[in-house]
């Protein structure tokens, strides 16, 4: 892989034919012999401020003005902070109804800062010397003598350490240094529990009622109309529960009713109740709550990555990056006429993972 084998003369010449290393002496007429030679740095031209003191004074005043505006803006910032209530709203075209305080603070701070910058830059552009200076570069590589010295020193040091000779020291030291970081790795163990079967179970179990997310009431089959969309959670899970977020992340349910004759998948029909089907709301791609249900096509789209599932056909994937169908929850009706789960999901809900199988 080394490129030592490319002879130096194969590389392009550093500059065009007849280049002139000594930059500064400006060449005014085209050099007949070397038409593309470097003419060197052009002579410095004066700015108006360099020759006209009145122009320089004007620049000075502009710079001072900008610094003064900055001071005023800072005073304005403090005044706005004190005077404007935090909840005051104003209408400013075209921004809309915005917070008066935020706008005032932003503008005054912006002006205060900008004017300092503008003043400094204007100062440097008009009043500081603008003579271009050429600075020499020096090669970064060390001189060969230095290189030799460094290597010799290193060899000497290495020899004096006797590391190469005393293998036992070397090997045990490497062993110790390799092992000691393991303590740090071990310490990370309690960051979280092992996966176990946590991803395989949800709160659903046989006999759990399907509770409407909106009304917090258990659902009856008659509540669910064809073409409607309802979200449900398992009975007993309340928003105030400490594990609500973790449980709803797996148990959230999407309920639709499809005319039984329109259900193409046999198992889906079996697991439904009079065409009422309950699917996991959690996308099998990366776990967004999928729920863009199109009631005429029975397609449901994920707003995050556009995986599309056909709810009339076992929720199989018809577009997008999801790898498998949405899990269906088997439901029925209990003695009191409420919709109930007939068990947990038969497969893990949400994104696929290595152990999913």
């Amino acid at each position: 892989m080394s490129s030592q084998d490319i002879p130096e003369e194969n590389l392009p010449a550093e500059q065009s034919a007849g280049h002139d290393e000594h930059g500064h002496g400006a060449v005014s007429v085209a050099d007949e012999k070397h038409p593309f030679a470097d003419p060197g740095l052009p002579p410095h031209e004066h700015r108006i401020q360099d020759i006209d003191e009145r122009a320089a004074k004007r620049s000075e005043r502009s710079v001072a003005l900008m610094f003064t505006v900055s001071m005023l803006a800072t005073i304005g910032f403090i005044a706005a902070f004190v005077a404007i209530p935090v909840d005051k709203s104003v209408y400013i075209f075209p921004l809309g109804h915005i917070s008066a305080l935020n706008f005032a603070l932003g503008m005054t701070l912006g002006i205060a800062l900008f004017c300092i910058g503008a003043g400094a830059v204007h100062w440097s552009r008009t009043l500081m010397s603008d003579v271009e200076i050429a600075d020499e570069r020096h090669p970064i590589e060390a001189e060969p003598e230095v290189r030799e010295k460094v290597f010799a020193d290193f060899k000497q040091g290495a020899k004096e350490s006797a590391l190469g000779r005393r293998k036992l020291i070397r090997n045990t030291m490497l062993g110790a240094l390799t092992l000691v970081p393991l303590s740090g790795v071990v310490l990370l163990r309690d960051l979280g529990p092992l996966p176990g079967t946590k991803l395989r179970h949800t709160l659903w179990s046989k006999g759990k009622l399907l509770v409407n997310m909106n009304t917090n009431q258990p659902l009856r089959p008659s509540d669910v109309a064809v073409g409607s969309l309802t979200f449900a959670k398992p009975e007993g899970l309340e928003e105030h529960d400490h594990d609500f977020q973790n449980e709803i992340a797996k148990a959230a349910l999407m309920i639709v009713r499809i005319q039984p004759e329109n259900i193409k998948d046999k198992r889906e029909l079996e697991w439904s109740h009079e065409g009422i089907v309950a699917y996991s709301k959690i996308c099998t791609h990366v776990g967004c709550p999928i729920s863009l249900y199109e009631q005429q096509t029975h397609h449901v789209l994920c707003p995050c990555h556009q995986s599309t599932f056909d709810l009339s056909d076992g929720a199989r994937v018809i577009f997008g990056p999801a790898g498998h169908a949405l899990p269906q929850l088997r439901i029925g009706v209990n003695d009191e006429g409420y919709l109930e789960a007939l068990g947990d999901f038969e497969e893990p809900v949400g994104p696929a993972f290595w152990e999913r199988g």
Partner: protein
Amino acid sequence: MSTAQTRRKAPAGERVADWADGRLGIYSLAKANMRKIFPDHWSFMLGEICLYSFIIIILTGVYLTLFFHPSMNEVEYHGSYVPLQGQLMSEAFASTLDISFDVRGGLLIRQIHHWAAIIFLAGMFVHMMRVFFTGAFRKPREINWLFGFLLFVLGMFTGFTGYSLPDDLLSGTGVRFTQGAILSVPIVGTYISMFLFGGEFPGTDFVARFYSIHILLLPGIMLGLVVGHLILVFYHKHTQFAGPGRTNKNVVGMPLLPVYMAKAGGFFFLVFGVIAALAGIATVNPIWVLGPYRPDQVSTGAQPDWYMGFAEGLVRAMPGWEINFWGHTLVLGVFIPLVLFGLFLAIIALYPFIESWVTGDKREHHILDRPRNAPTRTAFGVAWVTGYMIMLIGGGNDIVATHFHLSINAVTWFVRIGFFVGPVIAFIVTKRICLGLQRRDKDKVLHGRESGIIKRLPHGEFIEVHEPLSQEQMYTLTAHEQYQPVELGPTVDENGVERKLKGSEKLRAKLSDAYYGEGAQIPKPTAEEYREITSGHGHH
């Protein structure tokens, strides 16, 4: 202090400096740097935009930590934003609402922080492209290129962990996506997920964990890299464009003291001022309209901030491949984008090493290339940017669909195909444009500039007068180097024995030919050509 004393003793400033020098050796440092020369070009200030927005982010970030509670304890909100009163939310979300509505100036600082982050990343992207397209990454600056690249990647993740902290519905969706992506990693995915979130998603830990990553771990590393980046910029001295008097052995410009002290120092205030004004005018991440995170809620238009949009696009465009075998699942639909994300970024990071291997050039380069004079590199860069941009479109495919009245499926298919075809087309087109521009430069050097003046010759012919270029212009247009393709050399050695060619050698010869062979660059005009043309009269 009496006047008599000061006349005898050195002024106070000098004495302070002497004191410091005796302990820190500042004079030798100042000798090398006080009048350090920086060349003037607007594109050399892109890095400064990044540096300053980074400083602004740190300043405002420290302020935000004074009010933000990195806790996922559920609380009922009773602050001043009416549409959320009584809602359950994490303390993180509630404290962000308080910063926005009850702390005076809190909203401004939050918005400065977020806008500065968006601009920081955008600035780094453009800065990186400037360095790429001008070849500023060549020796001796490869390591600094890598520093910069690392800063960009770390900036992405610092941004991600930052906007996830308020625990709002939008960012929570992003965290959920991240968790799903982690789950897709073969063998260890579930373990990493459990360890990162302290159990199942969302758990009650990730805000606090992201917080220490966001405010300590990543910015700490970044600060170190920024310092290293700047030290190397000083050490290498800045690159410059070719021009009269500017050689590979010098750097022409203005001194740090006073011009760049004023310009660069002033530019910090300009950047801060623009961002502060922006934060006073336009809202960013209004978490109060997004609502608190709940894993069973979602909104359409769920996108990450722009710098993660590329990854989002990869995920959206990927078909849903999943392989089941021996009781295991390989989630290619998520894992491939995850890998591609890293690979695509790595390509640009490694490019300098690929190019230097192809050219075999071991010299230092301080004169920048004009992009047209390195057609293959430029074409490659444009192809990369095209791929990146197509994926950005993919990441916003739903917004694109609604705002241009397109089908989201069609947009996705466009992205899927475009990711492969777009860069190829961009490569070919860019290379042709570069060659065209090289031809034009050559033409200009040999025949002069078209003056726009039409002259009628005595015999009736109309000609356009061409003005010859000045020596400066001619030098500038011909100053670039042109490599010749590497030759494999004889396949038999001097004894007539067949020499074995290594595969890597053959590959390099091939690449070198593609870079610098016939048709890959326009030979620049030679002095002979020029003399031949100018010795005849007028032009043809």
